[in-house]
């Protein structure tokens, strides 16, 4: 077996690597995946899926404890068991992880557990538990090593008081006072979880708004909602230093007005971005180009070295599981010589955040569209104008669409509110098929659904909104 030369060796079995491996096998290529820790990667084990499980618990709890009466329900003494919440989340991660193993087996994907390092063109060395395994030979090597939490000097995670996502997913306690540094998707999701379970939550964001990659109107709307839920949100604010004490931790914070403050918290979640895992995988050996922590690739995920590719987080933003998977499929189909392969259009990759209310978007924000020189038409529709949303008890939300006034191209869609992470797909398809406002207007949206708001937003952009 070890003398075999594989068609492709994939380093990392995250959502980029494992999907690519399965597709490679489907295409009839011999494929091996080298994984150092978990099949399914961060996404499945320490990211997307377990956080969704936690958030489901906290949202259900919030509903029982604070909103039951509103729905005519009687709940007395609502409480929760953190250990069981975490256990459920871990159980789901495990179930998914096993699912990957099953898929590997089903598709005859070879798996090697260990740490991979590219030794030469077509040769990958593997070590497991400090011992070297036989080298793996492959015509093509795909690097899919992912990324990890970014840290800064003066605030290194200690695993006890200063958490990254990894510790935050298996918390020993619901901290009384929680500091979340960073208001991107990861930070806000943990803030939502702990805040709902009763933590006095403070979110610090260095930019001037929360969810800074989203459209400004969405950030503004989200800020209001977070504050309403009792979170303290400090924008244009910087945490300079974290000093662990005996039982708590002190943060030195520079506020918007330039004043510094010392604040004490029980726990801190660091969510200040991620860095690609480019170390110790042999990039230097072959001179594979990387820009800081990201490997430089072309539109087909090819590096500057023939036969070596990189996909997913390690190949640069957006750091999203679905981007990694899609990139991997394009990459492997190109390698296999499949006809009619098309590069990924970054502007068609949706982004979702599972705070409450949820946030989802695709394409240009209004601001970015204007910067790009478009004359835009903008539509807005609030959840309060939608019967289904009100019936669900979710009247807080907004759907915003941005069109090119000249061509009617749907430049972007930005949503906040219940289930928008499911709704966004409609607009992603619209963008993918290059529909104009006309086709969207002519589409029949079922009633009563939240989706109707997607229609209304488009209509509003052209002054034809019905329900507001």
């Amino acid at each position, binding site marked *: 077996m070890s003398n075999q030369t594989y068609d492709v060796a994939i380093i990392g079995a995250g959502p980029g690597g494992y999907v690519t491996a399965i597709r490679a096998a489907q295409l009839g290529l011999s494929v091996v995946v080298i994984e150092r820790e978990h099949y399914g990667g961060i996404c499945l084990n320490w990211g997307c899926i377990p956080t969704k499980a936690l958030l489901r618990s906290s949202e259900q709890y919030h509903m029982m404890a604070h909103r039951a009466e509103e729905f005519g329900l009687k709940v007395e003494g609502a409480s929760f068991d953190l250990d069981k919440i975490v256990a459920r989340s871990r159980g789901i991660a495990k179930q998914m992880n096993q699912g990957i193993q099953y898929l590997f087996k089903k598709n005859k994907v070879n798996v090697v557990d260990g740490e991979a390092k590219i030794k030469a063109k077509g040769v990958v060395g593997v070590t497991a538990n400090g011992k070297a395994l036989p080298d793996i030979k492959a015509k093509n090597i795909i690097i899919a090593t992912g990324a990890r939490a970014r840290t800064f000097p003066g605030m290194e995670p200690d695993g006890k008081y200063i958490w990254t996502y990894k510790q935050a997913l298996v918390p020993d306690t619901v901290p009384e006072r929680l500091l979340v540094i960073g208001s991107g998707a990861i930070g806000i999701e943990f803030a939502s979880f702990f805040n709902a379970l009763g933590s006095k939550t403070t979110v610090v964001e260095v930019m001037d708004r929360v969810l800074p990659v989203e459209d400004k109107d969405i950030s503004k709307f989200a800020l209001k909602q977070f504050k309403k839920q009792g979170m303290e949100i400090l924008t244009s604010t910087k945490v300079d230093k974290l000093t662990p004490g005996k039982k708590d931790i002190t943060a030195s914070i520079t506020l918007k007005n330039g004043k510094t403050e010392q604040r004490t918290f029980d726990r801190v979640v660091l969510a200040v971005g991620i860095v690609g895992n480019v170390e110790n995988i042999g990039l230097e050996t072959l001179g594979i180009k990387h820009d800081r922590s990201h490997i430089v690739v072309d539109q087909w995920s090819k590096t500057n070295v023939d036969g070596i590719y990189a996909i997913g987080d390690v190949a640069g933003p957006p750091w999203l599981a679905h981007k990694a998977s899609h990139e991997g499929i394009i990459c492997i189909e190109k390698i296999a010589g499949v006809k*009619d392969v*098309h590069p990924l259009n970054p502007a068609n990759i949706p982004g979702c955040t599972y705070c409450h209310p949820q946030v989802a978007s695709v394409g240009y924000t209004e601001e970015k569209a204007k910067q790009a020189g478009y004359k835009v038409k903008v539509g807005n529709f609030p959840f309060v104008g939608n019967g289904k949303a009100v019936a669900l008890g979710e009247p807080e939300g907004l759907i915003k669409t941005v069109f090119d*006034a*000249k*061509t*009617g*191209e749907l430049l972007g869609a930005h949503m906040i509110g219940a289930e928008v992470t499911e709704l966004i797909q409609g607009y992603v398809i619209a963008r993918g*098929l*290059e*529909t*104009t406002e*006309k*086709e969207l207007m002519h589409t029949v949206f079922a009633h009563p659904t939240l989706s109707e708001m997607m229609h209304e937003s488009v209509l509003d952009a*052209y*002054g034809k909104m019905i329900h507001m």
Partner: protein
Amino acid sequence: MPTPILMPALSPTMESGKLSAWLVKEGDTVSSGDVMCEIETDKATMEVECVDEGTIGKILVEAGTEDVLVNAAIAILLEEGEDASALEGYTPPAIPGAPVAAAPVATALVDDVASKQVAVAAAPASAPAVSAPKAASKSAHFSSPLARRIAGLEGIDIGLVTGTGPNGRIIKRDVLDAVKNGVAKPQAVAGFSSTAVDAVAVKALYAEDSYEEIAADGMRKVIAKRMTETARDVPHIFLTIDCAIDALLSARKGLNASGEVKISVNDFVIKAAAMALIKVPEANASWTGDSILMHKHADISMAVAIEGGLITPIVTNADLKGLAELSLNTKDLATRARDRKLSPSEYQGGTFSISNMGMMGIKQFTSIINSPQGAILSVGSGEKRVIVAAGGDFVAKTMMTVTLACDHRVIDGSVGASFLAAFKGFIEQPVSMLL
């Protein structure tokens, strides 16, 4: 053997027309003289009669299709005894010598009508000696709505764009590339695109609810096209002269007093212009590009405003007609023009035009020449003016100001002036027209 029924030319210059309605359907038996369909040109709707006998085997061009090229097969006629099975494997003939570029399909909108019309224009694979490399424009092509929209805005023939999307679908990027690389622009002859008006740019200036958009009909498109071309391509010069018409008015009064005729001032103007053209034949001329056509007859096109535009029916041999006959002639033409009942031969041709806006109180104006004619006379209103008479006295006279627009390629200023002098002579002394 199946026989193709071809799109007829309703006039010598007709290139294409709208097949507005079918009066027969597939399976109908027809005989010579039966009305088969209605064809609409820019200025008239005509009924087309069947010249053969047989059964309508297949209708190839649906009712409502615009810009059907002359001589394109519009239906297939089966002979007696043949049934629909005779159609199998039958291909209607090509339009002889029809340049592919002439297919006015370059509008780039791949709506059904356009694709059908392409199919008509270029269906037969055996199109003779046409080296259009991309006649493939006719074939079905998948394209995104956005790609089609942009192609329309940019005036790109989307059929000439290479698709790079899934399964060769034409996507936005492909059209933008085509724009950048300058390919796929329809040739100017292809349609009305030469007017180069950017509809979107025009609309962008106005709030969407501040106007009502009315689709241009065939006549409006022709007016837009012809006026643009003539104003752009023909070097106009304008000559203005005043005519005293008191004598004309009193002569008219005398003639009309009998009650038998009702001659208008315009009739006198037509007659005078026609006689002036015969007297100064150099003014009765057309430019062909490398020669001059000296017309032997004075066929006067008179501009008649009709609903939605204007039309220029022709008073043929106006120089030879007496005022009574001429007057009946103009009334009949004007009436039928307003009813859109003119046959093409009654408004196509003409050697000289007259536009009279006197009845609308216009004192003086200029016109765009009705190409390929060499000149047009713009006639203002008759009005009392104070004139300095020969002796230096002020006298009141009824004056009419006319302006001659000449195509300077064929009518120079002095020729125009001679024509106007002759015209003035006839108008001011109408009796001289009897000579």
